[in-house]
């Protein structure tokens, strides 16, 4: 399933001099790791979205910040595009290399520089893994709250680039709510500037550029150090598992919980197809006859949790629940979650490939969306399982297909595009947490007007006047938008879609 295709929207910067760059780096930084043999650069050709592949000219792995700075300065002078990469777990092709550019891997920047238990902060390098930070903070009874499903592997630098979420963000926020400041290198017209965005204090003078940096998909600056907020570990957590006869009843139950003034620590939903895929795999004890199940977690002090679980149970009982179970101990709580966390690999087991969508919709439109998806299953003759961050309206439909069948692939892509467009039509967005990357460039034309897209370009060029950082991602060209509107297909190429290795 390897397809090399021309899908980037940016032309190569003029006067790009790759050979000059490599010669200069070899001359001035002889100890620098530069990979440029096919067998070495091949593993970098894609991120977690393996459908989109592009082998880079070279991969550079600096060890120190001063080397990184010199590499970026050389790229700037030679006008060579730079795609900065963390663990490569992203799901939208945001870290896919540029055909004429280099990948700069920050994998070696994996030091936790400081954990300050008194200030409840950690200062880390961008290559530190998300889970490694929580593990390091655990002796202080602290943790790093955002927990994307890829947290074992994904890096904090990548989390900043994607503004990653997780299953606890309704209560604890996204990456943007948990990053206090980021030191970064900016490629200005005169050289490489070292800039601190945000502050260890609650705010910083001027515009909130840190907010723009979070979720900027590596297009504005190269983050070299991140100061994050750590959260005190709750005393205990308990989860309620509830099943329902219809997805609409389940969605109404979610609304009833919120209406009762409860903000659960986690609120997840799975539909029948997802439950059917997950239960034989994870044996979490889910009600396989149900049309939907909800997982609703409460955390805090033992008094708080007992109080909140009682209220949640009461709300659910009045909301037409089929079965309801509450975890009685930590092992059972983890078991209930294991099913949800294994949803993607479980679906991967029952289909050769799947496409994972990532729209967010106002929660009240969920019934409409799921109804439309089940119609689309008939229309495209493909199955779709739905996993839903119910608390914040972020829906992950998993469209099942066989990538070796070109016709099925085309149908799957059209199915996905229709879901994304419907997300926009229902008042939502094409991506809640996976990013635009290369995958959703065409759908950006649906969500944004030409002026708005032009404003995004303006933001990019304010930071990166030469357009060297991750060019061709996030912001579609006017030509792509015209074509998408005329032909209804944003995929100008016949790339295949996700394979089952994708997890999140």
């Amino acid at each position, binding site marked *: 399933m390897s397809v090399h295709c021309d899908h980037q929207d940016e032309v190569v910067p003029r006067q790009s001099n790759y050979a000059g760059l490599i010669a200069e780096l070899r001359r001035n930084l002889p100890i620098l790791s530069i990979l440029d043999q096919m067998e070495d650069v091949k593993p970098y050709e894609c991120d977690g979205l393996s459908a989109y592949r592009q082998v880079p000219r070279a991969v550079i792995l600096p060890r120190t910040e001063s080397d990184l700075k010199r590499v970026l300065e050389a790229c700037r002078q030679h006008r060579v595009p730079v795609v900065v990469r963390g663990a490569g777990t992203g799901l939208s092709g945001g870290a896919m290399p540029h055909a004429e550019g280099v990948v700069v891997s920050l994998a070696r920047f994996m030091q936790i520089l400081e954990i300050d238990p*008194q*200030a*409840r902060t950690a200062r880390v390098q961008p290559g530190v893994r998300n889970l490694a930070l929580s593990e390091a903070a655990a002796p202080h009874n602290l943790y790093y709250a955002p927990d994307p499903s890829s947290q074992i592997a994904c890096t904090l630098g990548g989390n900043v680039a994607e*503004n990653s*979420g997780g299953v606890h963000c309704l209560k604890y926020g*996204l990456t*943007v709510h948990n990053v206090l400041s980021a030191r970064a290198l*900016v490629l*200005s017209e005169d050289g490489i*500037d070292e800039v601190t965005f945000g*502050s*260890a*204090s*609650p705010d910083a*003078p*001027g*515009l*909130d*550029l840190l907010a723009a940096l979070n979720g900027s998909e590596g297009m*504005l600056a190269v983050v070299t150090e991140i100061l994050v907020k750590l959260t*005190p570990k*709750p*005393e205990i957590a308990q989860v309620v598992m509830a099943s329902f006869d219809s997805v609409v009843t389940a969605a109404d139950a979610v*609304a*009833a919980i*919120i209406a009762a*003034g409860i*903000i659960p620590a986690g609120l997840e939903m799975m539909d029948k197809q997802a439950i059917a895929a997950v239960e034989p795999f994870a044996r979490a004890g889910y009600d396989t006859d149900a049309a939907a199940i909800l997982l609703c977690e409460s955390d805090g*002090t033992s*008094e*708080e949790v*007992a*109080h909140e679980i009682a209220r949640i149970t009461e709300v659910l009982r009045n909301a037409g629940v089929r079965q309801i179970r509450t975890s009685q101990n930590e092992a059972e709580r983890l078991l209930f979650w294991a099913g949800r966390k294994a949803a993607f690999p479980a679906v991967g087991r029952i289909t050769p490939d799947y496409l994972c969508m990532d729209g*967010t919709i*106002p929660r*009240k439109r969920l019934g409409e969306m799921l109804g439309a998806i089940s119609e689309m299953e008939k229309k495209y003759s493909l199955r779709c399982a739905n996993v839903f961050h119910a608390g*914040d*309206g*972020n829906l992950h439909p998993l469209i099942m297909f066989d990538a070796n069948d070109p016709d099925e692939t085309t149908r799957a892509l059209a199915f996905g595009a229709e879901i994304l467009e419907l997300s926009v039509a229902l*008042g*939502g967005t094409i*991506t*809640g*947490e*996976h990013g*635009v990357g290369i995958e*959703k460039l065409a759908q*950006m034309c649906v969500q*944004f*007007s030409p*002026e*708005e897209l032009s*404003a*995004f*370009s*303006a933001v*990019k*060029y*304010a930071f990166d006047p030469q357009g060297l950082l991750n060019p061709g991602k*996030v912001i579609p060209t006017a030509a792509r938008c015209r074509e998408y509107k005329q032909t209804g297909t944003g995929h100008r190429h016949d790339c295949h879609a996700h394979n089952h290795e994708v997890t999140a």
Partner: protein
Amino acid sequence: MSLAIQTVSTVQPDSPILQRWQDQIRTARAEEKTLVITGAGSKSFYGLPIEGEALDTRDYRGIIDYEPTELVMTARCGTPLSEIEATLAASGQMLAFEPPRFGGTPTIGGVVAAGLSGPRRMAAGAVRDFVLGVRLMTGTGDLMRFGGQVMKNVAGYDVSRMLTGSLGCFGVVAEVSLKVVPTLHQETTLQFDVTEREALANLNRWAGQPLPISGSLWLDGKLSVRLSGAEPAVAAARRKLGGEALVDNSVAEALWAGVRDQSHSFFAEDSSALIRLSLPDTSAPIPRSEQQLIEWGGAQRWYRADVSQLQQFCDLATNAGGHATLFRAPKGHRTSKAFTPLSKPLLRIHRALKQSFDPAGVFNRGRMYPEF
């Protein structure tokens, strides 16, 4: 270098009021005039003094969309904060960041443009943490939407959060969508007689524990701590922290409103400046003898000082890892500096953004920094 935003001037705003703004902006641009975006004027003292023709936002008002179970409210910029808070309260919800009112009736547009948060900031987050999307009229009179009405949204750069607190220098926030939260059931205020140093040590220690602290205030040897949350959590925290509970709820409410709105006598306008220090909350006591009020667990410290001391406070704040603001100049004093200056590379980015969003410099020129 900056990139001009390509405009499509044929797109007509969907409201006569927005149409009027568009005309006013385009006329100002053509005549090389500047506009001062004004709401209720409750924060007109904030930032640098500026001049220009008023672009009055107050008649573009009203809540557009509010669904309590979605935890999102969308309102036009001229909507009074009081209307928004009353509507939310009727459904048992609130704005978590407790925006200050300064004795006036601020508009929600002004709340977002100023980006100021109240006592709950350290527990709940700042204004920017709750901004989900905006509809912005730029300096070319174009209407653009950024973000949306949903809580998770990473399509395009987060322009709406970026512009929160930008003091109207980059455009008029015509509409805003905010995340709202349920009102907390139980609220208790505890008081302790402690020195500044003890207060800071206590606040830092408590912040590292899962306690429902929603506000803190130290002034003249007295530390007040507000607890908000579910009844069992507040009761447990009260037992743990000790201190003396303020029995009279109305006294407690007046205390917190007094710091939120700066109606407390500490903030009274007089011949001294009101200087705000934003610091890492673990910063040591600042070696100054002026009268001081500490909030936000130690992260926001207010001083009443002679305006000539501003630079000293800036240096102290910068050395401590934060920054200082001349929040309110002394009566009758015309200041030319309110905010800590930006580094050269940051200023470059700000200028480029200004050039793109407001190429002719129509809006609030010089309100934040003289350079734009």
